[in-house]
């Protein structure tokens, strides 16, 4: 395959970053914006070309028979740890990668475009575009990684671009602390991933995905470790679980989710790009990428399922109580990603030919579209009312029709209403879950219902409920075209994306899978649940009334806890500030200053003190001198005599 396009896909964003980063200060906003958008647009076109080529060209590199192949476009040595362990920098093209290329470039392009309007006149406009380009580069590098170490590298880069973008408004302390939190939490998770890679690479002396997932490799590992286990898990399980920890961090799984809601301090386009569509699904992508390995260890998959399910429910419950609309969307994102995780966790070759995997990827795709749409819509709202809280909104449908309609489409899609895209992907996921165990199926169906409920709660509170009196002073209006255009296009995509024959393109083993909707067993019940939830939301929130308060009063404790996100932040605060900072760090610092350094100083002090103490020897009187003299000589003789004779 031609190397030009893949290389350009990576090169354009990083070049843009360098140009805008180094010379942006000297450019006008307009020039910087156009450069950024053009760059991303080109990248998008290239990515589409590559993806199209991959899926539809029928090139024998990409498909053999019906099976889609993994193709390494290029792979150059970057760093050689040892003859066995080599880190390469390359471009691996396979179904999920191609899909991710499309998702990332599309969303990124729209966000670039959208930002032109949204960030109009902001100080640091050029910087914003530079960071966006950096992020796009990192994310693209992540998805095309040929080996786990390359992935880890870009994983870190993604983290740092996220840090920079969350902290874009660096004058506001809350943004600064949010960015810090995001970075540190994901960093902590990455530590797990790093250790996982360490373990894995020790037993399987390669980083390369194709080699890692090649048949027979994992068995070789298990054989080489002689069945060694640690706390009940095999070496491989531990490695995989640890690697998944990294994914938990990036994808904001419980208990490492706390950074994501705070990350909403960043500009809204950023939230749409990073914290809804692309970066946060990196965890899912990671598991998908190493899926054949995970299949070797069901324990690890069960762990993923468990974490995902708990997170999904947790996030959904919390989302029902949040005031900040971006936080609601954030928790919804957590919940949806957890869905994908569960779906991956329950994927088994024997259950619907590994449907869970396909469904998860499908949802990843559709979710990216509608969640980006929702976030961008939220951005338009915030742009209009200059507040993140729904209490500052209400009754906006008249003022902002485009936003209203596109937002509604987004809500319907996420709620899983036929025929919007969310329905299809969610349905596939649910069937996979039911196929694995009814318990998880029901559980996740319930979560799906909650999703519908909180999304419509949000929708109603924003667009219906009660008109906010502030509008008289400041009449909200729809956003400029740069912002509206992406909304409309994304809404359109959300409407039709469900009909993409996803199973033909992406499956766990490359063999096509024919999607069929299990209406009776899965689709109808979930649809019903969603509809009921929407109705409930309609009743409670369509007009201003006291029902929500009453509902909250039924379980006040639960409501308060959910409102405070079940006190996770407080717990973390306690651990980090009170224990790690105040107890561990401070005591170590104290220990260092007073004990270690004190000892060193004590040497000096003792020397000084001794010097002072023995000064009497030098009393100034000759007689003392002579006394010492004589006694010295006598002692010298006496001691020697005693010693040798």
């Amino acid at each position, binding site marked *: 395959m031609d190397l030009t396009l893949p290389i350009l896909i990576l090169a354009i964003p990083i070049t843009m970053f360098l140009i805008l980063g180094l010379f942006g200060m000297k450019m006008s906003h307009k020039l910087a914006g156009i450069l950024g958008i053009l760059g991303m647009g080109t990248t998008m076109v290239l990515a589409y070309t590559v993806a199209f080529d991959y899926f539809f060209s029928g090139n024998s590199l990409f498909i053999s028979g019906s099976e889609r192949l993994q193709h390494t476009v290029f792979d150059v040595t970057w760093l050689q740890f040892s003859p066995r362990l080599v880190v390469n920098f390359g471009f691996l093209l396979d179904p999920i990668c191609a899909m991710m290329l499309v998702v990332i470039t599309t969303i990124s392009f729209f966000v670039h475009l959208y930002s032109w309007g949204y960030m109009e006149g902001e100080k640091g406009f050029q910087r914003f575009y530079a960071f966006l380009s950096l992020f796009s580069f990192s994310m693209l590098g992540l998805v095309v990684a040929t080996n786990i170490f390359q992935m880890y590298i870009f994983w870190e880069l993604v983290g740092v671009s996220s840090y920079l973008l969350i902290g874009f408004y660096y004058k506001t302390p809350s943004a600064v602390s949010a960015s810090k939190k995001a970075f540190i939490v994901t960093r902590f998770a990455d530590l797990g991933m790093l250790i996982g890679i360490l373990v894995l690479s020790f037993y399987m002396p390669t980083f390369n995905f194709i080699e890692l997932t090649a048949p027979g490799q994992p068995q070789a590992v298990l054989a080489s470790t002689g069945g060694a286990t640690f706390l009940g898990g095999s070496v491989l399980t531990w490695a995989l679980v640890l690697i998944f920890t990294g994914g938990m961090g990036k994808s904001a799984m419980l208990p490492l989710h706390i950074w994501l809601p705070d990350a909403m301090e960043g500009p809204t386009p950023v939230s749409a790009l990073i914290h809804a569509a692309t970066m946060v699904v990196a965890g899912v992508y990671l598991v998908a990428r190493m899926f054949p390995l995970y299949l070797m260890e069901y324990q690890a998959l069960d762990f993923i399922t468990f974490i995902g399910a708990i997170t999904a429910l947790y996030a959904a419950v919390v989302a029902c109580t949040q005031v900040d609309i971006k936080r609601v969307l954030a928790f919804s994102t957590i919940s949806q990603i957890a869905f994908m995780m569960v779906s991956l966790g329950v994927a088994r070759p024997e259950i619907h030919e590994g449907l869970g995997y396909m469904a998860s990827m499908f949802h990843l795709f559709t979710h990216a579209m509608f969640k980006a749409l929702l976030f961008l819509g939220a951005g338009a709202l915030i742009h209009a009312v200059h507040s993140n809280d729904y209490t500052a909104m209400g009754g906006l449908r008249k003022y902002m029709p485009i936003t209203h309609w596109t937002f509604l489409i987004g809500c319907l899609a996420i709620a899983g209403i036929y025929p919007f895209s969310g329905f299809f992907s969610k349905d596939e996921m649910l069937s996979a879950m039911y196929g694995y165990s009814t318990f998880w199926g029901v559980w996740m169906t319930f979560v799906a219902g909650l999703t519908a409920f909180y999304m419509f709660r949000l929708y109603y509170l924003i667009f219906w409920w009660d008109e906010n009196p502030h509008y008289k002073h400041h009449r909200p209006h729809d956003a400029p075209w740069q912002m509206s255009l992406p909304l409309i296009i994304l809404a359109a995509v959300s409407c039709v994306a469900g009909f993409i024959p996803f199973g033909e393109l992406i499956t766990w083993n490359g063999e096509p899978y024919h999607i069929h909707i299990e209406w009776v067993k899965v689709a109808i019940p979930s649809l019903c649940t969603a509809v009921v939830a929407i109705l409930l939301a309609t009743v409670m929130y369509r007009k201003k009334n006291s029902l929500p308060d009453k509902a909250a009063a039924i379980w006040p404790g639960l409501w308060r806890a959910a409102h405070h996100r079940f006190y996770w932040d407080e717990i973390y605060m306690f651990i980090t500030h009170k224990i790690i900072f105040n107890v561990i760090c401070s005591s170590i610092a104290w220990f260092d200053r007073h004990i270690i350094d004190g000892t060193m100083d004590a040497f*000096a002090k003792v*020397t000084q003190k001794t*010097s002072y103490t023995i*000064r009497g020897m*030098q009393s100034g009187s*000759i007689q*003392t*001198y002579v006394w010492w*003299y004589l006694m010295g*000589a006598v002692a010298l003789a006496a001691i020697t005599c005693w010693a040798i004779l």
Partner: protein
Amino acid sequence: MNYAQFLTMQQELGVLAVFLIVFLFDTFCGKNSRSAVTPLAIVCFAAVTIYGFFCTGTGEAFGGMYVTSPVISCIKSILNLGALIVLIQAVPWINSEEGSVRRGEFYELLFVTLFGMYLMISARHFLLFIIGLESASLPLAAMVAFNKNKYESHEAAVKYMFTAIFSSAILMMGLSFVYALSNGSLYFADLAESIALGSNSVLLVTAIAFVIAGFGFKLSLVPFHLWTADVYQGAPTTVTSYLSVISKGSAAFAFLVVLAQVFGAVYSDIWEWMMYALIIATITIGNLFAIRQRNMKRFMAFSSVSQAGYIMLGIVAANVLGMTSMIFYILVYIFSNLGVFGVIQAIENKTGYVSMDDYRGLHKTNPWLSFAMTLAVFSLAGIPPFAGFFSKILIFTGATESGSVALYVLVLIALINTIISLYYYLLVVKAMWISPEEPVVPAFRSACTERFGLWICCAGIIFLGLISCIYGWIYGVSEIAATEGFFALLG
């Protein structure tokens, strides 16, 4: 009666000749030409110094009472060089009101002490040795008392004199015991023989201890060092510098000769351990006292006490390397210490300040003096690339050659002590360069002789270590001594 034997003693005769020239000139010249004594003495002595480098023969005179060999000539030449620098640095002082009264006496006494030291080094008979030793120390007492108007000078003289007599009593007591153990002869060779034949007894141990104590006085080994600080402080600075380098250097070599040539047979039985104890005590106590001192001369006194400990490492090494390193150490020590004293003297002569506190901010007013002082103390502290580093590391190398663990431990203690010494040397540097206060010493231009002396010292400090041929030369002569059986008794 073969008086031609006196001609073997070329270096001694040279010094004696200078002594006589100065003595006669001083006695018989008119009042007006008195001041010509200084250049006369310096020029004559410089000639002797140069001549000394050509005296490389081996010789024996008076039935083995006096010997000379290349290594002995070498150490004498080194001492000559040091004494010459002292003389050059002393010019402003000796021309001052204070010194000019007794200018001639100063040179005469100095040359006699030098003569005494040479005898001490060359003597192979204890009687001659004692006479040399006394000639080296008694006139010094008179020199210590040279500052008529300063009470401290008198006090120092009293302390020096009384301790000196006491120590010579102790030394001679020791020698009387040595005599008791001999075969009736006080020649080193005969003594060594009879000691090697005899067995260890309390008498022998006591004798050695007392002899070491006697040397301890000259070398300021702890606990025989207590006079040092007071005398160094009280004596005129020129005399202090002479006392600290030349007197000490000669005694160190003589000590090596006595220990190796007389008591060599009982090295590992008796005096090795005594020396360990003394070295540890000397270095440590010297350092501990030095860190509190503010008076520069007193400070240098304790510094020289601890330096003596390092010199002694060359003696316990008891091998060619040790001997070479010790001589080299003495050479470097002469240059470094005279560098320090040169600066002290220059400042004292001009302004009268001698306290370290008065050196605050010296670099602002007298940058070159500060620079010279810094080099000198760095060299004393053993900082490369200055010569002191090489002398220290070489003496440690020599000391560890035998490979005994005890010596390693000894060297480790010495090394740890270098840290303390570095501390107090840095205090001087700190006073000069770092203290933020306004300088006390005003800017002045020191006399050209002082500057010349300092230049020589600085050149020595910088180049002695880097240019290895000097060490090579010393090694060569030491090796000759070794082949002639210098260490034969040590086995």
